[in-house]
């Protein structure tokens, strides 16, 4: 090994370059690394010259076509001395060769993260790097972290390395990348932080063997304990222990060997190199080798005295037989060898359930198994509370939707909407409203009155006269001689969060107010929450905020969808379109809790003198009340997302209004004259005097 200390493998100030940096995994990991420690000076990927990977809250990563280009472009002080290889397996050899040829004297260490590199290529990589006097770690390493320096290469620690790797005095050397992270978390329970976390990789050939790392760990001034996670395969442990004996190794080891259960079974473990292929390569052999080196039986958490006695004599270390026994073993080791903890142990090693719902089963279990939710550590606690509290709606995993759709399909015979045959939908009564609701909610309307109400909303959205901005948009397009679709787009282009889109705000407003009320069906009067109480509370809060805003001289946030520019002249105002829907509900014996709330709110604001009149509950509000009323049970049942539900009122308005825009277009094209929407120069006001 060329490096003479662990810090030479990775320390603050190292400059890292990443191969195939635009790949899915490499990019994600590089962004997280850059945010954590900012040590990436650039990356390369064939065909991606001059691209830049944006790093939120960090320095962007420049991308070059080749490694040689990266070296040429970067100033000498930024040239990489570390290279992380994320290339596809068949490209690894070429990329490492390029680094070796161009980076000699500059690059000191390569970390090959790529999995499934052939053994032949792996052996060649080692040979190439030996000749170039470069260290190489991998293949299939997850990387290395230097916790006290706060730097890493690769993905060790995931997107929050600081959470697992508290700086301290244990160095973990692990055949499993995941176990580096996992063991670091467990050791916090023993008050042990981490000096270095090293994922060796566990391919058939481990390019930097255990003995080399152990020699460096001995020299590392911060490392007081070396923790090993070992799997079957290879003679690395035998070779390492021979070396430790020869040099009277001074640092204690804490060891866990896994994989014995697979012996005698024709199964392969998860790691490619976990193959027993001779003496000293099986898990049992490795356990024996460590037990011989330690001169003691494996650590038994139930008999720590025996372990202490042996350890006091040999001072070489302990082997744990279960992973969680590493923690009590570490405590014994620190106590006997008089090593002070790095910090106060953060939590005991115990079952700590985060979410529990054993239902009726809990009553039938012994107390030790009928667990209750424990103490969730921060920041998970807050996030969990927030996610569970926001219990409305479904959480959907993201995926590439380029050629995929839940909403539609066509098997060559039948077009379908969410799995329902479109021709069959056409046969139903009120097919349009039925089909649109299905398309927007992912399931057919549950109750007969829903399509009817929805249709009324579409009709209400059709127009608000030729002076409305959206009608003007269609008329302008028609006047300019456009095709009908352009006029319809102009209509859609002239609606927005102020005109028509306020329903989205209203939906968010109602969700905020009702999400914790236990409301299940907004159309069920009997199970409606106490509205008077809620209205009173809201008005009091509103009044308080209004006076605070006035004192501060800032504009007050208005109640969405309350009031209308036209229907505002009376002491008590009504939007006629809202009235029709309200009357229909009444006539049908239906109830909508959201609409009821809106009316009560308008009245109470006036009654308490917050406003001088009863504002109209406008059409956007009634659209929202109807749509959210239909969507709410689906939110409660986690069948749709909250985002989908709050979009529904605006979509309804837009769909109705675009038909109205088409009407304006047809009328205007028939009866209007070309360019008649143009404003004559004489009517335009100059607000800037000529300056030339």
């Amino acid at each position, binding site marked *: 090994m060329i490096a003479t200390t662990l810090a030479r493998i990775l320390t603050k100030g190292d400059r890292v370059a990443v191969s195939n940096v635009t790949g899915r*995994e490499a990019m994600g990991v590089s962004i997280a690394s850059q945010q954590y420690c900012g040590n990436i000076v650039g990356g390369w990927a064939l065909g991606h010259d001059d691209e830049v990977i944006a790093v939120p809250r960090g320095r962007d990563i420049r991308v070059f076509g080749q490694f040689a280009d990266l070296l040429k472009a970067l100033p000498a002080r930024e040239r990489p001395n570390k290279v992380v290889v994320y290339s596809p397996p068949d490209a690894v050899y070429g990329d490492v060769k390029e680094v070796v040829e161009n980076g000699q004297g500059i690059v000191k260490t390569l970390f090959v993260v790529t999995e499934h590199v052939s053994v032949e*290529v792996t052996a060649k990589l080692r040979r190439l790097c030996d000749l170039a006097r470069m260290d190489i770690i991998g293949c299939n390493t997850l990387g290395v972290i230097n916790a006290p320096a706060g730097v890493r290469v690769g993905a060790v620690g995931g997107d929050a390395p600081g959470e697992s790797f508290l700086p301290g005095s244990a160095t973990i050397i692990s055949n499993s990348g995941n176990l580096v992270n996992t063991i670091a978390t467990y050791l916090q329970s023993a008050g042990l932080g981490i000096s270095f976390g090293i994922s060796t990789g566990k391919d058939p050939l481990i390019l930097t063997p255990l003995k080399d790392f152990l020699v460096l760990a001995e020299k590392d001034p911060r490392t007081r304990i070396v923790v090993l996670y070992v799997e079957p395969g290879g003679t690395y442990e035998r070779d390492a222990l021979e070396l430790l004996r020869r040099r009277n190794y001074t640092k204690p080891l804490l060891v866990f060997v896994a994989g014995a259960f697979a012996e005698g079974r024709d199964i392969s473990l998860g790691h490619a190199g976990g193959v027993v*292929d001779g003496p000293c390569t099986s898990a049992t052999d490795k356990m024996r080798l460590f037990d011989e080196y330690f001169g003691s039986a494996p650590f038994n958490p139930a008999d720590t005295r025996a372990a202490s006695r042996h350890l006091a004599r040999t001072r070489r270390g302990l082997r744990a037989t279960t992973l969680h026994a590493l923690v009590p073993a570490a405590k014994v080791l620190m106590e006997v060898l008089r090593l002070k903890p790095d910090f106060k142990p953060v939590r005991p090693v115990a079952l700590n359930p985060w979410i529990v719902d054993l239902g009726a089963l809990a009553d039938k279990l012994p107390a030790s198994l009928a667990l209750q939710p424990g103490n969730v*550590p921060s920041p998970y606690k807050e996030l969990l509370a927030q996610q569970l509290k926001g219990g409305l709606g479904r959480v959907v995993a993201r*995926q590439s939707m380029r050629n995929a759709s839940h909403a539609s399909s066509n098997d060559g015979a039948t077009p379908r909407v969410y799995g329902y045959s479109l021709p069959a939908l056409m046969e139903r009564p009120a097919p349009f409203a039925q089909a649109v609701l299905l398309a927007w909610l992912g399931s057919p309307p549950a109750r007969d009155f829903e399509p009817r109400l929805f249709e009324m909303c579409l009709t209400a959205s059709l127009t608000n006269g030729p002076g409305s901005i959206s009608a003007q948009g269609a008329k302008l397009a028609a006047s300019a001689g456009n095709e009908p679709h352009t006029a319809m787009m102009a209509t859609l282009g002239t609606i927005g969060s102020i005109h028509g889109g306020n329903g989205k705000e209203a939906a968010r407003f109602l969700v905020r107010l009702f999400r914790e009320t236990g409301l299940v069906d907004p159309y069920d009067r009997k199970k409606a929450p106490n509205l008077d109480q809620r209205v009173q509370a809201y008005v009091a809060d509103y009044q308080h905020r209004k006076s605070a805003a006035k004192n501060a001289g800032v504009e007050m946030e208005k109640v969405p969808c309350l009031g209308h520019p036209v229907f505002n002249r009376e002491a008590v105002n009504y939007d006629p379109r809202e009235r029709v829907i309200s009357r229909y509900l009444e006539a049908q014996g239906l109830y909508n809790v959201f609409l009821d709330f809106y009316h009560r709110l308008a009245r109470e604001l006036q009654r308490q003198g917050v406003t001088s009149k009863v504002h109209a509950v406008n059409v956007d509000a009634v659209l929202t009340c109807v749509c959210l009323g239909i969507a709410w049970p689906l939110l409660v049942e986690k069948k749709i997302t909250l985002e989908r539900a709050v979009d529904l009122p605006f979509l309804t308005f837009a769909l109705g209004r675009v038909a109205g825009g088409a009407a304006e277009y047809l009328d205007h094209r028939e009866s209007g004259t070309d360019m008649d929407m143009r404003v004559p120069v004489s009517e335009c006001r100059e607000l800037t005097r000529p300056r030339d």
Partner: protein
Amino acid sequence: MTNTRIGELVFLEHFAPLYKLPVPEHLAEPVTQSKLKEKLGRWGAGIVKPDVLAGKRGKAGLVRKVENVQDALRVLRDVAAEEINGQNPRGAYVVQMVPADLEIFTAISYSSRTLSPAFTVSLRGGMEVEAISEADKVTVPLNVFQGLNAYQASEALAKLGLKGKLNSRLSIVFVNLWDMFITTGMLRCEVNPWRVTTDGRIWACDFKATFDENNFKARDLGLSWPEYPSRETAFEAEMNAWAAASHQGQAHVSSLGGKKILPLLFGGGASTIITETLTQLGGEPIFLSDFGGNPPYERMKKTAAICFEHHLHQCALLLILGGKANNTLIDVTFSAIADAIQECVDAKGPVSIPVVVGRGGARLVQGMVALSKTLSNLRLPYVFFGPDTPITLVAEYAVALMRAGEQRKPKGRL
């Protein structure tokens, strides 16, 4: 995916002629009486062998000498039908009997000590080459770029006391053996033994090799890989086919014969440790799995769907467990698992098993909440643990919970 292995017959038929490796004549299916008569007439005697992948001298008991056609036909039938270490042979074949004065054993493999290929030669056999004592074998570490040259081979043989013309002849053969090893993407090849006749002729008399699935050279060697009968379960077969169809993420499973705990495990190391804990405590895990590698949603969902299709309605407890992920997005994997459970229940009817979950990593809480919502909808009892509870403790709890259910309902389902 696993590395491809071959036995002697493929070597005799395909590789030996290509690399000019001296082998005895052989006769494989279809064996006709006339051909057999002609061969045995010339050979004097033959050896009937099963075409099977049974290492560690496992097939030794089924290697039989035959001297006449009737015996040969009968033995061929018997040997082809015999099970060896749980494996059925693909068939049987007969090889020319080579009387020998000397046997030499060789292996080429990669050494974890020298991190390079290594050539081992010995006059002792009858065991794995690694098990032969250092004093009885010579191992030559090789430069992977240069390979084995005749001088190195000759020196190794000289150390074993083999000199003169035999040394030269063997050295040339061994160089050809290396050529085959390196140009075909092998991980390991063994000739056990080379037999040297009194007139100094050399014959490769048994052979086995493993090819590196990751080596492009092994992917297209112009032969169809032999399909040795295996004990692969329908579940393993479907999962392996699915794993082979995708290059992103892993979907590694090996059936363990258990019937109680259905384990969806993440990470090579964590899956090993968890399965070990479950096995030690009598949790009877159905299979060993490793579904790590940050699988995309669709891959995880299909993987989980296959597991559920085969086992959800038969198991006593579902365990979804991994360490603290470095790369894997937990919300993606958990949402995919949740959707797969939902679809399995939609298709096959409800289940009432407890679910134990333990994981850490990016977007953990979102993943837990998404999965818990589905489990709640399906009315499945569940417990979720975060990364602060060791995976081995979670595995212990899962076994205890499963057992408590068994005590309550002797048939094993809660």
